[in-house]
């Protein structure tokens, strides 16, 4: 499998460290979708995807990320991303997703953003 997912928590934020690629090839995007859906079904509302070691993403992977973000915001939660780079950042950039999904270079700042007073406001200002 070309995608490895590690899950950890920081207070009420669930962090997923993604390593490899989130593409349709051998079911990586399906794997990611399954993990995210399970987390949301189990009550997770604040998700941070650490994309530092994600080397490639295609439309299937993007669709999973955006779909989860959409679902979370309707439940009062949110999804944010950490350190997209290289081809992954390029995909986010050309699709203008950085305008809709907050992205951070620093994990502490990303976690703090979920606790800030503007958390709810930023989510509602940019509905998907």
């Amino acid at each position, binding site marked *: 499998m070309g995608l490895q997912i590690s899950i950890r928590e920081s207070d009420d934020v669930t962090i997923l460290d993604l390593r490899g690629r989130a593409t349709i090839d051998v079911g990586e995007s399906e794997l990611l979708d399954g993990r995210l859906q399970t987390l949301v079904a189990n009550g997770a509302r604040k998700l941070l995807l650490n994309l530092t070691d994600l080397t490639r993403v295609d439309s299937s992977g993007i669709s999973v990320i955006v*779909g989860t973000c959409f679902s979370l915001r309707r439940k009062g939660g949110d999804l944010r991303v950490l350190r997209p780079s290289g081809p992954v950042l390029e995909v986010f950039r050309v699709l203008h997703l950085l305008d809709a999904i907050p992205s951070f270079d620093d994990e502490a700042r990303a976690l703090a953003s979920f606790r800030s007073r503007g958390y709810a406001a930023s989510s509602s200002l940019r509905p998907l």
Partner: protein
Amino acid sequence: MTSPCSSAPPAPQKTALVVASGKDIDELLNTVLASDGWSIHRAEDNQHALALAATEPFDLIVTGRKMLGPDDVEILRRIRSARAHLRLIILTDRFTPGDVVAAMREGAFSYFSAPFDAAELAEMVRAAMAAPCWDDGIEVLSATPAWVRVTARCDIPTADRLVQFLRGVRDPSIPEGIISAFREVLLNAMEYGGHFDPSQHVEISFIRARRAVACRVKDPGQGFSLEELRHAAINNPADDLLSHVAVRETQGLRPGGFGLLLAKKLVDELIYSEQGNEVLLVKYIDPAISQVA
């Protein structure tokens, strides 16, 4: 089409022949092959591999990176003339785009030119190990340095193989962006036009002009109207980049709809035929790059 591959049941233990390519690559291949219980044989160089292949029925051969591209193709030709369905992955430091096309025409499973992406190589080896029937997947219909026409079977492993051949060319005028765009429209054609039915094929042309590269993909489906795809991001209004997500949810569709938009953003032109089962991608080449290429 080439003759379909054998439907004989797989042997209990598969054997691979790995030609020395240096410590890192050799260790990577060992790890991948051993993890699935394959027996691994080694050769010092490709000539040694050829001699071993004459007596041992290997299921997979990974060539050594230090050979010239044409020599790899000649070995491929000689080995496959004796064992038609053997899977051979070419690793090479020195090659031409013509070598890549020749390898595809002669039935290489895949082609990696330096510098190698270890993760991609590992995934391709796993794909080769898992592929029970692969060698009628890609057929080169015609090829000149400027225009290559192929057909590809409608399944994801075949799409991945074709994309890797394109990456293997390492043409500086074919950046990763257009390869990603090609991959998106290819998978779209295989899924929606061919329903991922392995008996169906997609037809592809790659055209390399002086100031542009183009790629045409024709699927076997009935086509569609781009304007009617409300569940696709490509039709979202400019001020609501993600409105199709709600449409898809209402229609009970799985997450998706970004493929065409992503392809469109990565090339300069994305043009559909009237029927909608043919699409043309065009990327204009920076004149400075075209002079280097």
